[in-house]
Structure formats: C-alpha cells, structure tokens
C-alpha cells in the first residue's frame, strides 16, 4: 500500500478514535445522553471497508455506527450536533447516537433493533440491482445479530436471488455481556455464512491492510459475479458495550491482550517502518492536530446549534 493511502487510513481511524473519545467526555458531562456505544478498538474495520466505497454506495450500520457515518462522509459537525440533540444534527437531533442518518451520503442508519437493518440492506441492494444503479451496498452488524431470525432470512434471500451486496460482520466476540461461544453453536461464522451458499471469508479486523485487501476482493467479486459476499472481521471493543455497562463479564487481562493489537498502533508501527521516524513523527503530529481541530470545531458547532422547535414534529410523522 502506498504511503498516501496508508496515511489516509490512519487519519480516518484517528478521526474515529478522537471522535469517540470526545463522545465519552461529553457523556460524562451529561451533554450526550441515552445509550452511547463506542467503536474504540474496531476502527480498522469501518475505515478499511469504507475507504473502498464511493459517495454513491449504500451503507447501513447498527447503533455502534458513528465511525461508519463519519467515514461515509457525514461531517463531524452533524454527528456531534445529533448526539447533543440539536437541530443541525444529521437527524435533526431526533435520532441521537443510535440513529445517525444521511440520505445525501446514502447512510441509512443507525438502527437500534439488533439485526433489523440487515433485511433492509438486502432491499437497498435489491433496488440498486433492479434500477441498474452502479452502487455497492454494505451492511454492518455484530456477531450477536447472527443468532436472530432476521439474519437467517436475509442471508437466504440475498443468496437465493443473487443480490449483490456485502455483509460485514464485526465480530468483537461479545453481544453485550454474552460471549460468542455462549450464544452460538457454530462459532466459525464463515461456515455459517457458507451454509447459505454464499462466498465468505474471515479477516483480521485489527489489521487495516488485510481489511482493505479482503474487502477489495469481496467487492470485485460482488461486481463481477453479481452475487452477495460475507466477511467476518475479527475485532474487539476496548470499551464497555455502552456507557451503562459495568463490563463484568470479561477479564481485564483479555481486554489488555487485545489492546496490544490496537489497530491504530499497529498501523502507526507499520507506516513508521517505511520511512524516517522523524518524518513520520512530524506527519503524525500534523495529522493529530488537524483532527483535533476538526473535532473541536465540530463540538463547538454542536454546542452552539439550537434545539429543534416543536412545530415540525407532528407534520413530519407522515
């Protein structure tokens, strides 16, 4: 991978990390309320996958979707404004952390019912196929979602009807406090996907190079074969499930072990191997400053944005 591309990936991962850390702060300050699910630790997945998509492509996420929205093009300003419940938020402050939407960026949520976005993604991909539109459809979900009936029904329809789309399972090994091995009889998720007669592969989700490489392969297959593809990204969330979660169900040592694979540190190290450390250090400093500026401005913007008035509520239900 060329230096520029690597640096862009690093930048995007750092943007996500910085944004998420700020979210945690704002939550402590009680400026963000409700449920808040952070993506810290998993950045390589969204950054790698979405780096291969264009404006035109469809993306659907879960309630752990800040990264996906940001990287799909929704501005940090709109995201923070949303999380602060302000009118300039990408969902006018009505959705909050779990329901980021942006029609213009073809970012279709932000859904808080586990697995409910999956059949909708099949529908988006179905529409793209039927309307002969040149766009990919990518759907993100956790490994926990794979136990839901909605997953099963969606995989079958997508494979049966040869609907071109990418299923991205972010396997962080836990669904809230429930470890994968305690909730699914088949823990090899690629085998699960293949049982629907769908191409599938497993990816080290802490290594953004591998994420990019395998996603590229998948997207090419989807384009040429006009069929769906399933990728399992093995990754880990460094934080608790949500800000409410006391995180009692996993060993601190397990968390620490995964932190050694921090996808950002990994990428920094890889890049730093390829050039003069001082040059890299400088580039990295600049990057960090730029990101800090972007995010600080975004938070300022969000704080100064207004609350929505009541007048549009009723009339925008239908």
């Amino acid at each position: 991978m060329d230096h520029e591309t690597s640096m862009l990936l690093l930048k995007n991962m750092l943007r996500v990390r910085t944004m998420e850390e700020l979210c945690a702060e704002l939550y402590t300050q009680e400026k963000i309320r409700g449920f808040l699910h952070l993506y810290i630790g998993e950045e390589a997945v969204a950054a790698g996958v979405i780096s291969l998509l264009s404006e035109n492509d469809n993306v659907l996420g879960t309630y752990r979707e800040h990264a996906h929205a940001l990287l799909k093009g929704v501005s940090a300003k709109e995201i923070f404004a949303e999380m602060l419940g302000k009118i300039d938020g990408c969902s006018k402050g009505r959705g909050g952390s779990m329901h980021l939407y942006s029609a213009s960026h073809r970012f279709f949520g932000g859904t808080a019912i586990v697995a409910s976005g999956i059949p909708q993604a099949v529908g988006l991909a179905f529409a793209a196929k039927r309307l002969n539109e040149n766009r990919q459809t990518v759907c993100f979900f956790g490994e926990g979602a794979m136990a839901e009936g909605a997953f099963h029904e969606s995989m079958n329809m997508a494979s049966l009807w040869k609907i071109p789309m990418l299923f991205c399972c972010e396997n962080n090994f836990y669904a809230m406090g429930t470890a994968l091995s305690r909730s699914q009889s088949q823990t090899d998720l690629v085998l699960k996907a293949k049982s629907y007669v769908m191409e599938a592969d497993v990816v080290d989700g802490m290594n953004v190079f591998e994420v990019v490489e395998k996603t590229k392969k998948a997207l090419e297959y989807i384009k040429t074969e006009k069929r769906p593809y399933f990728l399992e990204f093995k990754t880990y969330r460094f934080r608790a499930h949500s800000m409410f979660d006391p995180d009692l169900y996993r060993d601190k040592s397990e968390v620490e072990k995964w932190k050694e694979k921090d996808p950002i540190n990994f990428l920094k190290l890889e890049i730093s191997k390829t050039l003069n450390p001082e040059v890299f250090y400088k580039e990295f400093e600049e990057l960090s400053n730029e990101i800090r500026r972007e995010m600080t401005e975004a938070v300022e913007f969000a704080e100064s944005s207004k609350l929505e008035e009541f007048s549009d509520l009723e009339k925008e239900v239908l």
Partner: protein
Amino acid sequence: MKITYREALREGLKESLKTFQNSFLIGEDVGAYGGTYAVSKDLLNELGSDKIIDAPLSENGFTGLGIGAAMGGMKPIVEIMTVNFIFLALDQIINSAALIKFMSGNKLSVPVVFRMTTGGGRQLAAQHSNSFEGWLAHIPGLKILTPSCIEDARYMLVYAMKENNPIIIMEHALLFNQSGEYRENISDFNLYKANIVKEGSDLTLITYGGMLPRCLKACEEMQKKGKSVELIDLRSLRPLDSETIFASLKKTHRVLIVDEGWKSGSLSAEISARIMESSFYDLDAPVMRLCRKEIPIPYARNLENFIIPQCEDIVLKLEEMLK
C-alpha cells in the same frame, strides 16, 4: 361495471404494478400459486417475475426487504398473506417503516404498501381469524385502510401507491366474493374520508371492513321497523375521520359502533373516547359498542358466530338503543 371484490382488488393491483414503473409485488405464493385468495392470479404470467416475486416463508425478511427497496427508490407492494402472520413482520413495520421518516429528520421516506387479508368468519380457528386492523391503527407513522366496497377494493391501492409513506391495506376475507359496481372515472377519490353509506336520522352506526354488509342489512331491517339509521363506513382507520362522525351524531344524537376486533382496546374504544371528548353534549345516550367477544375464535361455526357480531346481534342492539 359489476365485478367481485376479488376481481376489483386484482384490477387495482394490476394497474398499480403497470402504472408505477418501480413497483413490484412481493409475498408468499403471490406468483406461481396465484395468491392464496387468487388476487394475483395469472399476474406472474402477465407481468413477469420482475413484477411478481414469490418470497420464501420469511415475513420479517421480505418485509425488511420491501422497506429497504422503498428507501432505495422503488415502490414495493409487500403482501403479508394474512394479518395473522403480521407479528413476524411487525418489528420491521413498527420499529422501522413507521419511524424512519421522522427519526431521520425527515430526510428519508419509506414509500411501501403492505397488503393483507384480515378477519374471521370462515371457520379458520384462532390462529387464522384475527382482526387486528383497528388495533394497528394505534401506531403513528402508519396509515390503515380497510376497503369494504367494490370501488375501494378497486382504487385504494392505486391511490395508496401515490403516497410517500407506509400504508397498510387490509382486505377482508369475507368480502372476496361480494360483487357490485364501481365508477370507471373518478375525480374525487379520497383515501381518508369516511363514507356515509346510508343516511339516517335516529342513530349513527359506525363500522368498517368485513362488518359492513351485515351492518347495512341491519339498517335495512330497522328501516322496516320504522327506524332510520345512518351508516358510516370508516374506510380509513388511521387517520380516522372524526369530523364525519361528529357531524353525523350532531344529527342523530345516538351512536353504535360495530367493530370486529376484540372489544377492549379496539378501535371502537377510540371512537367512543373521541366522541366523549368532543361531542359529549351532543349525545342523548351513551355511545355503545358491539364487538368480537373477548375470546379466541373457535373453529366450530356455532361458537364462531357467537363470538363475532352477526346481523341479528346488531339489530337487537339497535332495537335496544332505539326503543
């Protein structure tokens, strides 16, 4: 032109699929089988498999697909074979279809139509005789239509297709073989306005869907007894056309609601409560309700008829209220 309700539904469906370029029908057995109630009979041949899609037994899945396709620029008609299976798809309908427009800050919309058969009265027993159309009218973000006359069977879907938000159309199983006329050229078709089926002055009888024919018959019986009952077919359960109701009772001062749903928490309760709030002083007597008894529907005909209001029950109630 005299046709059956079934034929009228089929004509409306065909027109909708032909007129709206990005439309398609998806559901279980809508194609090769021809539709459980033969509404989509032959359409697979006539319109092709791009327009008529036989789905696997995956109500949640293909309902979600319809919602996604709607967000993606298409105009899907999702057929849930009968209302009894809607629970399997209800998360998609209530937690997504009904919310996304509002929750996305009015930036997305979900222009999908859900069609399904509803109602009891055919000895199909408890799991296949539900009447949830009134109950579902609780959900903001949905519209619920209940065609009960031939013209509505013919046009409601066509007009629903022009709307930009989720609409549920409930076709009543008891009506499929009814036949009647409809106008070929209509200019004043309104999806959401209640219809005064018969004018009257002594009492307002409010109903919808499968109960309409027996209510009409009951009105005729009452006419013979010298009582003039005004009959309102709600047509749309959400939005609910309260104005037509209030106007009628200003004239009659008495109201009976006949609702096929189980009594507690049925739509009839909402109508009664609205009258209470808005027209209390217009009433000469309390609003009464005649509903499905609060019992699951048994298979045996005598038991089923005992539970679902019959023409005679309506007449008895009307007599009681007008004596």
